[in-house]
């Protein structure tokens, strides 16, 4: 058995055509992916916007607007928050001229009680146009906070006051007599001196920050998901190795297969040693692919490298078992590649549309999705990275183990039949 394992492994390693799919494919594709996603990341890199502000009376009277904008100006904000470089203009036509000349990308003006962004229609690159969306976001956030404050003011204005101001109000109310003019004057002076209350300031930055995260960074899941599905697919390509190796001792597949069927080694021994060899080869390809993704492409596998490797081992075992099973039928090896390609579609490898279909199927037919080993492999990685508990991971491991055992068992049962009507 050992010798059969050894020579089978040797014949795999010396067959570049067999190794191309499981080894070359993930490396080539992940490299492609990394270029694709790198471009995407760059275009989402925020460049501070050269933003004009028309500083007229309406602007001055807009509550907290200037504070909000300044908090994202280079002079005030840290680099994370540096969205704008502000330039103030006394009147709109000055700002317009500056925009037309390209000194600024656009300007903010308060019109009809609300701040709006004006940009020159022409001459803006897509990239700069994209950057300007941060301005819109900040302004939207500001308007929303303002509305929020207005609502609060209508319901219970004291909520807008800080603790000491609220204490002052409470004291005035509780003292039983009418508050004097001096008391009220003191309260107003205190509140005015505080500027924008903390509550409101907090409101503003929160509203803007959440928006920013969602829109400007590529969703960290979305690119990783491709790599995981890719590893799942590479595991699927390993199926082809097992197919070829097992075909090489199936009598109806080749003279070599016939000859080995006539040898004095039982079928299950043949299967176990050949499966072990193909699994080792497939798994090594995957491990190399994963290492490449980790070290070269910089894909994040979290701190759980060992369970990640184990996941790959298990999934390639399931696929090798499936490959052996296919080899016991009179089917072409191309079927392995075809199956993997289809399964990878339903694991969401081919872009967002395929991801959406994959997710939809997982919701509507969870059983069907569970039978897709490519998806299961990708899910194994998710479960490792996004859950603290190992339970979901172990669950998928169990599913893959059952798959592997089932495929191998059916394969060996089918192999016991060795007499053929035709060769």
């Amino acid at each position, binding site marked *: 058995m050992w*010798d*059969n394992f050894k*020579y089978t492994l*040797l*014949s*795999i390693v*010396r*067959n570049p055509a067999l190794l191309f799919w499981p080894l070359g494919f993930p490396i080539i594709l992940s490299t492609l992916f990394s270029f694709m996603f790198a471009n995407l990341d760059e275009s989402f890199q925020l460049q501070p916007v050269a933003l004009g502000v028309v500083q007229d009376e309406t602007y001055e009277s807009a509550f907290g607007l200037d504070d909000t904008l300044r908090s994202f100006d280079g002079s005030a904000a840290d680099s994370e928050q540096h969205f704008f470089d502000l330039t103030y203009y006394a009147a709109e036509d000055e700002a317009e001229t500056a925009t037309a000349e390209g000194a600024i990308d656009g300007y903010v003006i308060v019109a009809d009680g609300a701040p709006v962004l004006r940009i020159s229609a022409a001459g803006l690159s897509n990239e700069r146009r994209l950057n300007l969306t941060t301005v819109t976001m900040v302004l939207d956030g500001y308007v929303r906070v303002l509305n929020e404050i207005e609502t609060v003011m209508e319901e219970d204005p004291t909520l807008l006051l800080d603790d000491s101001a609220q204490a002052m109000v409470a004291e005035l109310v509780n003292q039983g007599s009418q508050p004097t003019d001096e008391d009220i004057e003191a309260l107003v002076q205190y509140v005015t001196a505080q500027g924008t209350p903390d509550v409101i300031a907090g409101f503003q930055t929160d509203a803007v920050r959440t928006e920013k995260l969602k829109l400007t960074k590529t969703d960290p899941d979305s690119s990783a998901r491709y790599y995981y599905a890719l590893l799942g697919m590479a595991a699927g390509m390993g199926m082809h190795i097992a197919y070829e190796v097992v075909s*090489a001792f199936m*009598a109806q597949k*080749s*003279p*070599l297969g*016939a*000859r*080995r*069927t*006539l*040898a*004095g*080694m*039982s079928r299950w021994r043949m299967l176990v040693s050949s499966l072990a060899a193909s699994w080792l080869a497939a798994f090594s390809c995957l491990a190399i692919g994963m290492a490449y993704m980790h070290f070269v492409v910089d894909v994040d596998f979290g701190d759980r490298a060992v369970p990640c490797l184990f996941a790959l081992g298990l999934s390639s075992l399931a696929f090798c078992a499936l490959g052996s099973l296919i080899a016991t039928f009179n089917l072409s090896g191309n079927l392995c590649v075809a199956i993997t390609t289809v399964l990878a579609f339903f694991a969401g490898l081919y872009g967002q549309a395929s991801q959406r279909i994959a997710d939809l199927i997982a919701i509507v037919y969870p059983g069907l999705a569970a039978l897709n080993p490519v998806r299961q492999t990708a899910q194994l990685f998710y479960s490792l990275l996004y859950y603290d508990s190992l339970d979901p991971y172990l669950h998928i491991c169990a599913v893959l183990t059952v798959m592997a055992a089932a495929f191998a068992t059916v394969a060996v049962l089918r192999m*016991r*039949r*060795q*007499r*053929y*009507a*035709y*060769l």
Partner: protein
Amino acid sequence: MSISQDSIIHVSKLVKRYSELLAIDHLSLEVRAGEIFGFLGPNGSGKTTTINCILQLLSYDKGEISLFGEEMTPTRYDLKRRIGIVPQEVAVYDELTVRENIDAFCALYVSNGKERKALVNEAIDFVGLGEFVNFRPRKLSGGLKRRLNIACGIAHKPELIFLDEPTVAVDPQSRNAILEGIERLNAEGATVVYTSHYMEEVEQICSRVLIMDSGREVAQGTVDELKAMIGMGERIRVECASLDDALLGAVQALPSVRSAAIKEGALVVECTSGSHNLTDVLGVLSSTSTAYGRVWSEPPTLNDVFLEITGKALRDEA
């Protein structure tokens, strides 16, 4: 069904159909220990099919097959281990070298590494592939590939060896080496089933022969028995300066002459088996004062046997 003590292969009334085609038609045969058993038949006569049925690779419609006195089934690995196979088509691992190939096949039978090393070396010497041990099969010529194919089948020293046309595409020199090797294996105790459509080879090495045609047995026996069966003696060819019908008639009148004809300026006489046919024919030539040149006298071949029984040639004399 009685099986004699030393029966290694016993096939009784084997019938095999490939859907419409009746490939083996009630074939029975018996191979005894220590024999080199020849399977002779034209292309498509069912030699390979018979072997594959015996080895349980093919299903068959009827018949009983036993090996070493026991019923053969696909899972009789104990019996399979005592058998060596050299298939008609070269069947080796393309990715492994000559030595690795022989070792890989030998390992299917012999697990002890040390023992195997000796066996593999012996097999390499046997087929004379010593210079090529590190070659991959695709770098070997057709004839060398055939030799590798043989080595892979015999390295584990099986008791029973099937060789299905092992000498196809092998040059005459290597062919002789292979035939001698097979005789050596036989002398060392192996029983051999040898398939060929080269009757000279079969005549040369086989102790008993089964001639088949269209899945049926044509004749079975030792080479001498087969020849005696058709009652044919030698074929005599004489180059003559002049030939006429009177001469031909005189030759034909000889009691031991089956037929006489003039072909390409030579007199061709086929005789029944007898002891002084050549003297008789030459006597006629002398008595008619016919000058003659070279004379050939060939004993009958298995092709003559085949021709006699089926009315067609076993194979194109090429």
